[in-house]
């Protein structure tokens, strides 16, 4: 295995889990999330020699992931990458409030894609406004307004459906 492949494999092993969580919140489905991550890391592999030693490798990968997500929404299903040969069975529901999770993911899916990306980057990835703006290639003002609008949309969708006191 070449040096590039070794370094790439190590980075994938270390960071694909986190990226998959972000992708899951963006698209609401683990299979699609894996496909998004696969597409992202394929692009990363092609750019590896240029970006591997960059301090902001994570930021670059995250930016690629989000832009791939936004871009794929405009494309047909047949342009999406598939990473697994056969769909896997659904994971068993975990402990905790499944209803709340379903409600939240359903509500997130109804938030327009770019607003959703802002919410996920700001509140899941904990990125600053500046970092989020860079990832989405937009102004900081846009991030602030999209975050406010996204939160408002989410609030309107989630609050009526969750029992009082169950929103954590």
């Amino acid at each position, binding site marked *: 295995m070449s040096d590039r492949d070794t370094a790439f494999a190590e980075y994938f092993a270390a960071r*694909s889990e986190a990226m998959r969580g972000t992708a*899951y919140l963006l698209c609401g489905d683990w299979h699609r999330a894996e496909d998004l991550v*696969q597409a992202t890391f394929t692009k990363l592999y092609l750019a590896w020699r240029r970006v591997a030693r960059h301090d902001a490798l994570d930021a670059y990968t995250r930016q690629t992931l989000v832009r791939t997500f936004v871009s794929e929404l405009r494309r047909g299903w*047949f342009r999406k990458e598939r*990473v697994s040969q056969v769909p896997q069975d659904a994971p068993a529901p975990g402990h905790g409030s499944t209803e709340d999770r379903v409600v939240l993911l359903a509500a997130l899916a109804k938030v*327009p894609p770019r607003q959703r990306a802002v919410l996920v980057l700001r509140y899941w990835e904990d990125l600053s406004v500046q970092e989020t703006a860079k990832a989405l290639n937009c102004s900081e003002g846009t991030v602030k307004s999209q975050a406010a609008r996204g939160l408002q949309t989410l609030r309107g969708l989630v609050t009526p459906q969750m029992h009082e006191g169950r929103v954590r």
Partner: protein
Amino acid sequence: MNEQELKNALRDAVVASSPPPAMDTRRALEAGRAAARKRRATWGGAVAGLAVVGIAVGATLLPGLSGGSGSVQVGGQSERPSTTGQSARPSPSGPALTTTVTPKVPSGQPNAQPGASSKTQWPDGQQDRTATSGPRADKGTKVLNDLSSSLPPGFSAPDKQRVGFDDYGAMRRAQASFEEYVGQTQVWTYWAYTPVVKADAEGVGRLEIRVLTKGSTELGGATGCAAALRATYPVHGANSRCDTADVGGKQVALLTANTPVQNGLEQAALFWHEDGTLVTVAQAKGFANSGHPAMAQPPLTPQQLAALATDPKFHLD
């Protein structure tokens, strides 16, 4: 819900959904290597093409510079069919350069994408993958119209507007896009989708079609359920299953999502014509991100969906 509550809710959503096992590093590496190989092949084709053009230009200019009558043969390749599809013929008038560069057809690399290295290499003078006018675009529009007129009695395909989801574009749309060259053959996708409503019933469903013309390398020549499960998902989600439906002796792969994911299509029929043309017709009870409620049932029965996939009017090139 404030910002902190959202943070907590997002964390809970990921943890409680029991993520599947970790992704396979080996597979990721293989995908990266394959993409790198493909890129090298594309650039290799482009460089070879430029070399051929350079030699041909030399053949054009040299007779003129030497005052010859054009009988000097330089750069023999210009007389042979170019493997890249680029050709240039010496101008009979000497130095006046009339080199013509046609879209590159990398016959040695069935997977190479001519458009990847230069905008001018898309077929038929296109600026990108999508045909926005001309016969290909017209064919895409016709697919949409034919799909709409193929609905059973009582159903229609109106041009509805989204309610509160303006970012998502038109609900009724057709597109013709170039896929790849395989030898001299252009492979195209005609893709169309439309909302579907039933008379005297609530809800808006979705019907979608994709025609992938013959020669595609997308599924490596596989057909039937084996290929349907390998294809990118018109229907995705857990527990997808594939059955074979018979339509007048024609075998159609019928893919059904037992647990449809949000916004996903619920059922798709895939039919391969003998020449390899693949027709996929898919449907869902609801039209995601439209603001309209879903229908109680999918617009078509599985058999109707399968029959639509075999309809000769969708056998396109």
